[in-house]
């Protein structure tokens, strides 16, 4: 069986302001209706490659804003559990966000609002993807390379892959699947890495652990 090698790609992200902002929850709902599709990827995942504080509670920007600026914990919890990859496409994610806001607005008499200077700013991103020139032919060859992979590569193969591939999976699992059942357990562990609540550094560590667990003896 001839299986193509795994090419390590890398990426870098730069944020772009859209100039659109919302000060109240109602405004957020209205602006979501027309927000640039790229904003959704940025506000759910962009923070991983951009300066930010790791927020142990909330992974996406909508939840952080509802918590810190609207002081609306119910809203932030509803936002926090939205998993963008559980939806078919971006338009469905947009619709889900709008719906949870509608629900919250119907429950409250006062529209939650943020102080001036604490508005929600819609941001999108531009991504540059480049080839590192490194290709692995066998999974065991990757054992020592993963800890040295850039965070951009981790982002590209584990976060971006899930919006890019038909199977909604990370690139490594898809490649390993081509070897038949040989790496079934490793694939299972890689698929079980929850990208929520962890930094890319931590994700790289978990991938390394999975490879070590299943392949160290083979190597």
């Amino acid at each position, binding site marked *: 069986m001839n299986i193509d090698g795994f090419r390590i790609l890398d990426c870098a992200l730069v*944020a772009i302001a859209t100039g659109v902002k919302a000060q109240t929850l109602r405004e957020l709902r209205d602006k979501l209706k027309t927000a640039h599709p790229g904003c959704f990827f940025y506000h759910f995942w962009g923070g991983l490659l951009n300066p930010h504080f790791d927020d142990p509670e909330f992974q996406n920007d909508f939840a952080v804003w509802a918590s810190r600026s609207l002081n609306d914990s119910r809203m932030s919890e509803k936002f926090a559990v939205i998993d963008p990859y559980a939806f078919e496409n971006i338009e469905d994610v947009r619709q889900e966000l709008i719906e949870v806001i509608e629900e919250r607005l119907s429950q409250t008499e006062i529209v939650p609002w943020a102080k001036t200077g604490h508005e929600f700013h819609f941001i999108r991103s531009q991504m540059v993807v480049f080839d590192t020139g490194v290709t692995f032919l066998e999974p065991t060859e990757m054992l020592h390379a993963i800890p040295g992979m850039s965070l951009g590569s981790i982002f590209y193969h584990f976060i971006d892959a899930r919006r890019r591939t038909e199977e909604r999976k990370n690139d490594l699992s898809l490649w390993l699947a081509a070897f038949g059942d040989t790496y079934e357990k490793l694939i299972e562990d890689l698929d079980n890495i929850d990208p929520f609540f962890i930094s890319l550094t931590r994700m790289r560590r978990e991938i390394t652990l999975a490879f070590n667990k299943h392949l160290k003896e083979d190597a």
Partner: protein
Amino acid sequence: MESLLEQYAGIVGNEVIDHLRQLAGPLRGIKILHVNSTKEGGGVAEILNRLIPLKRELGIDAEWEIVTGDKDFYQCTKKMHNSLQGNRDDISPSLLETYEKTNVLNYERLRDKLLGADVVFIHDPQPAAMISHCSDRRNRWLWRCHIDVSRPYRPVWKYLREYIKQYDASIWSLSDFAQPLEQPMYLIPPSIDPLSEKNMALPEKEIKEYLRSFGISRDIPVLTQVSRFDRFKDPIGVIESYRLVKKYVPVQLVLAGGGASDDPEGEQVLNEVKAFAGEDPMIHVLELPPDAHRAINALQRGSDIILQKSLKEGFGLTVTEALWKGKPVIGGDTGGIKLQVIDHFSGFRVTTPEGASMRIRYLLKHPEIRKTIGKNARQFVLENYLITRQLREYLTLVVGMIFGSEEKIELRMHER
């Protein structure tokens, strides 16, 4: 001798440097020109001093030029700066005329370089009007705004906007600052250089020696604010906070200000600060030359708490510097301080001298909390606010400017 990139690898890791090298691959040989108004003093000059050699080491032909002008020019640009930060400060037509003429003169002097570069970065308002004189340009021009323009005095922004909208793109430190413009508005926070004299590790002996030379005792807690003598930095509010604290705890206050050659108002504010401080021996008002980087480093490292009680702030690099040194920061709830100072994690944000005084007393009372916050703070800067991150974002942006404006740009091997 180690190259600059190798020296950074020792701090941020080899993979970060390899990543930069690969990202810069397609940009080898391109000409990038940066233009601002001063070679020393202020965060912009400090960053450019290091970004330029780093870009060169990555194979990019990077250059840095400054615009020059007379007293009226700097008075006008200082007024612009203040107005963009929200002061209602009208600028007379004669000063605006000086601004425009000075930009023409500088454009003529720098013409060949401006037109010969592939990408031109113009920093802040001082050189911004040069763009209107090169309608025949074929290269890309970006305006890099380092100021908090979230609520500008409208007439001045309206005037400046006529120039800014001629740029291909603009770069802002925070989304709050970005004003509506048709062009792409990139968001790139600034950064600090961990290898510079201002941020490198210093021997304890040297720190002690600097403090001693300034008459600062290490036996009494030290609060320090490092910033230009500028009303937006609220030095008077800082003294008020200190006075509220010293009713309960013995404490010293250091107000250390580095001058910048493009800031004509500094002396006036410095005199106001000295008058307000009076003869209190525990207040140390230090006028430091623009190159006093080691002294500032030692002051920050020798302090217990760093203050940056700004009323308006661009990004607040002095905050980043303090966090890098593992110090808790008490900062104004404004600009980039909001991004860096998170309550109980890296310090506290405050809005009044009273608020600042309470947080100072709390931190002085709990040294173990100061230590935990300091540890968080350093790690946060390591991951987010070192120059290598800013360089990565600049390179990404330039790749975008040259290879296309799509949301995702995929570079093939031969383009690298």
